[in-house]
């Protein structure tokens, strides 16, 4: 087992553990902090996968912006630690479903192998050209229209959020 694999195993274990914490913690703040931990682990994986820019925005957008937003809301609502039951009535059937989903995914992954036409971007290209430039080139040429559409989506989200958060709907 080389050092890389070992590192992966450790970080993956941390990610899964904090993932479990997200769904088991009674206090939402704890859950949120665990989720931040998971996001950091994922950022680590992105670095390992030669996608440093993705790692950066994972930290900035997810762990930074979105999670801050969530934590703000938690504090704003001042939700008390769940007094009574933590789980819904469907805890058993929900668990069965999730486990089934997991097994199916495993079975699927084990049965098949990865195929597909390989592109020319490997670690060296990323190193030489720069990840940001690669992303930017793709985003503003081939994916220009979806990119513009996303801006409309964000605009709609802004308006929706403002209207929904108003005192009187």
């Amino acid at each position, binding site marked *: 087992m080389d050092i890389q694999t070992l590192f992966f195993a450790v970080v993956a274990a941390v990610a899964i553990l904090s993932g479990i914490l997200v769904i088991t913690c009674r206090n939402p703040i704890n859950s949120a902090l665990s989720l931040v931990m998971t996001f950091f682990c994922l950022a680590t994986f992105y670095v390992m996968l030669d996608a440093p820019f993705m790692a950066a925005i994972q930290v900035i957008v997810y762990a930074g912006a979105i999670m801050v937003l*969530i934590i703000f809301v938690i504090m704003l609502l001042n939700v008390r630690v769940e007094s009574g039951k933590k*789980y819904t009535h*469907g805890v058993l059937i929900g668990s069965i479903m999730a486990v089934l989903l997991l097994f199916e995914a495993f079975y699927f992954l084990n049965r098949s192998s*990865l195929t597909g036409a390989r*592109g020319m971007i490997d670690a060296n290209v990323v190193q030489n050209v720069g990840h940001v430039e690669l992303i930017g080139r*793709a*985003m503003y040429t081939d994916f220009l229209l979806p990119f513009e559409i*996303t801006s409309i989506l*964000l605009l709609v989200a802004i308006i929706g959020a403002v209207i929904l*958060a108003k005192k009187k709907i």
Partner: protein
Amino acid sequence: MLTHHSYLILSAILFSLGALGVLIRRNAIIIFMCIEMMLNSVNLAFVSLSKYLGNIDGQIFVFFIMTVAAAEAAVGLALMIAFYNNRESVEVEDLNVMKW
């Protein structure tokens, strides 16, 4: 040996964990976070497959997913505030007005 398979399996585990959280938790904010976790597991799969294929397109999709997640966060949290203002609660068992 570290292969792309490992990433995909990790992605599946995280996705299932997120689904489990969505299904069993009562607190809507935690459910919301679980959804974020599911989105992230998909992102991981995208990035790892992008690396495997030597193609940048998968990472572009991660961008879009992040945008959607941001929009979802804004609207979803606003909804939660509105709901809390009405019901003094963020528990999904109180979200039962979809009947009739």
